[in-house]
């Protein structure tokens, strides 16, 4: 899963600077930048934008102008995929804003853009530092939809960063903060929101917080269902959401639906099972009227073995697995739907499931192959 927040957000910040009164070393490249931008040639604008900013720094031009020039360059560098340079320029712009304006929403947003660019450049510690500056400012600002939106975007960057480092719990913490902020903004259905809800689900499932896991996985499944994401991801989210809802008791499930209702997110109208709607849920076909269906039930479950290398390295993990139960009760067609932070967890789960035995699904008394049994494995190191 990749962070998809668009870099074009940065371009919106590109601002005009009055070239009059500036030293030639600044005004000349700035005019070249302006001409290229007016011609719609961002590639040609990149170099003069950089030169104008650097010249302003050298010539001791006023802070506000220098900040705007840094911002102009940062936006172009970001759009050009020069994330490292964009991060440095946004950070410089944010520093200047912090000095001149203090902890405003604009300052925080600029730190966030710096963090985003640093993340895209793969600069882990810089990402954390810039994002923390943004969060510090946002936390001190009066609550508003704009502030909540900025918190969501910043926490999202931090969640992705932790997820990339296989630190699911930390990713989950940031993801929960992101979703909390998002719910104050109102329901937003995009891939970032879906992925973040999914991270929060994984983190809570890993900690056996079944109610929270059910909430976040269900939100994720709603959003994936509403966005044009790939069908496989949607089915994984649906399967995990369904599984997690089966792990909570009736009262908690009622409370869950109330929370979902209050969140503003709703499942999309989706009654056509042929179109894949709900395909990730029970895995049972729609049998004709009057059919007597007795679902498969486990007889023997072999314990899963913790992968030794991951154990000694202190890694914990979580796996979602799907399999079929043959008419003779044997397990077949095992698929690891998700295994984080390492595929070895999924392989260990698969090895265990291969030896499981079931009472088969019975349809009108006839033992029948059962597709789509889903289960979750949590690999946790205890003292």
């Amino acid at each position, binding site marked *: 899963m990749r962070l998809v927040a668009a870099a074009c957000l940065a371009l919106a910040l590109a601002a005009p600077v009055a070239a009059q009164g500036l030293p030639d070393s600044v005004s000349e490249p700035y005019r070249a930048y302006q001409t290229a931008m007016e011609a719609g040639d961002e590639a040609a604008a990149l170099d003069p934008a950089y030169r104008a900013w650097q010249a302003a720094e050298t010539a001791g031009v006023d802070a506000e102008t220098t900040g705007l020039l840094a911002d102009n360059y940062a936006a172009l560098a970001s759009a050009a995929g020069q994330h490292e340079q964009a991060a440095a320029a946004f950070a410089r712009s944010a520093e200047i804003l912090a000095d001149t304006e203090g902890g405003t929403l604009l300052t925080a947003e600029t730190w966030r853009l710096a963090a985003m660019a640093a993340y895209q450049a793969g600069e882990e510690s810089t990402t954390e530092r810039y994002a923390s500056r943004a969060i510090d400012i946002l936390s001190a600002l009066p609550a508003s939809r704009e502030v909540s939106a900025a918190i969501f975007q910043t926490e999202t960057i931090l969640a992705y960063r932790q997820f990339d480092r296989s630190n699911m719990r930390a990713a989950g913490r940031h993801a929960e903060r992101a979703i909390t902020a998002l719910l104050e903004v109102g329901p937003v259905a995009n891939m970032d929101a879906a992925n973040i809800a999914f991270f929060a689900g994984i983190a809570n499932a890993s900690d056996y917080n079944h109610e929270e896991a059910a909430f976040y996985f269900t939100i994720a499944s709603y959003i994936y269902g509403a966005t044009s994401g790939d069908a496989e991801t949607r089915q994984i989210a649906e399967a995990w*959401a*369904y599984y997690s809802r089966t792990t909570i008791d009736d009262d908690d499930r009622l409370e869950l*639906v109330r929370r979902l*209702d209050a969140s503003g997110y*709703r499942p999309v109208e989706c009654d056509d099972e042929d179109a894949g709607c*709900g395909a990730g849920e029970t895995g049972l076909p729609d049998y004709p*009227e*009057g059919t007597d269906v*007795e679902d498969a039930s486990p007889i023997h479950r072999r314990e899963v073995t913790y992968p030794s290398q991951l154990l000694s390295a202190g890694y914990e993990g979580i796996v979602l697995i799907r399999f079929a139960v043959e008419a003779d009760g044997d397990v077949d067609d095992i698929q690891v739907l998700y295994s984080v932070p390492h595929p070895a967890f999924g392989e260990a789960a698969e090895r265990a499931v291969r030896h499981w035995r079931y009472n088969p699904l019975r349809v009108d*008394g006839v033992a029948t192959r059962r597709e789509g049994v889903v289960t979750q494995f949590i690999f946790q190191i205890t003292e």
Partner: protein
Amino acid sequence: MISALITSAALSVAVQSEPGCEDSARDAAFAFSRSDDAAATEFLDREACHGNAAFDAMRAVAAWRQGNFGEAAALAEGVVISRARNGCARTREVARLAFIAGASYLAEDDEALSRYHFWVAHRVSDAGGGLTRNERDVAEHFSEDIGTYRSDHRRMMDGGFLDPLPTPGSACAGFPSVQLSPAPPRDGVLFLVVELRTNGAGRVSRVEEMFSFPDAPPQALIDSIEGRLAFDTRTRQQVALVLNPCADQLTWFDREPVCLPGYQPEDSQAQAAAD
């Protein structure tokens, strides 16, 4: 001017002489309470009243009593929705109509809609009464998975029964009484929920009636269920049987369907053809 006034007065008298839809519904409810289904049917023979909640509630009762479960389910569902929208969710009639919808959808093999309406019935009855203890147990049993499936969520969010139910206002009073029982509706139809226990050999060792409409199940019927071989040993489960006049929900291991005393499995086909 004078003639216009006279015409208007005459019209007014003519309208008053035709009973309102609510009046017809109340008359039908009274007839049902006396097991006079023929009279009730006459009171409900007014197409112009279709869509009136009180009237449709009685049409739902009529369909339920006749074993027309598809029609009963749709009508009861419509009235439940309309009563909830009018702030009358927490009433005994809504609990009973939701039960009729839940049981009827179960008879129609629509588990999702059955689950939802039994949940509504149980929830409303908890708040404002309307169901007997056994009926509540049945409603609870057949709605225990509510919220597990995504398809439940929209119904629950949109239905008006998720949040605490408001106290019904005075406008909710006067709705005709909805009775789930007694009295036979049509010969050879029985809606029955039983709790079955199986012994170590997987045979049904005990059958306990949880809900039965329109009448108590004949002992011969209970006897015909006992001793059947089930899939699982030492289990306890509730099963809904729609005997019309036979039910095939207990046809484990190629056993014959369960039939009301005096009926044979082939009567089910004859009944279906007659319907």
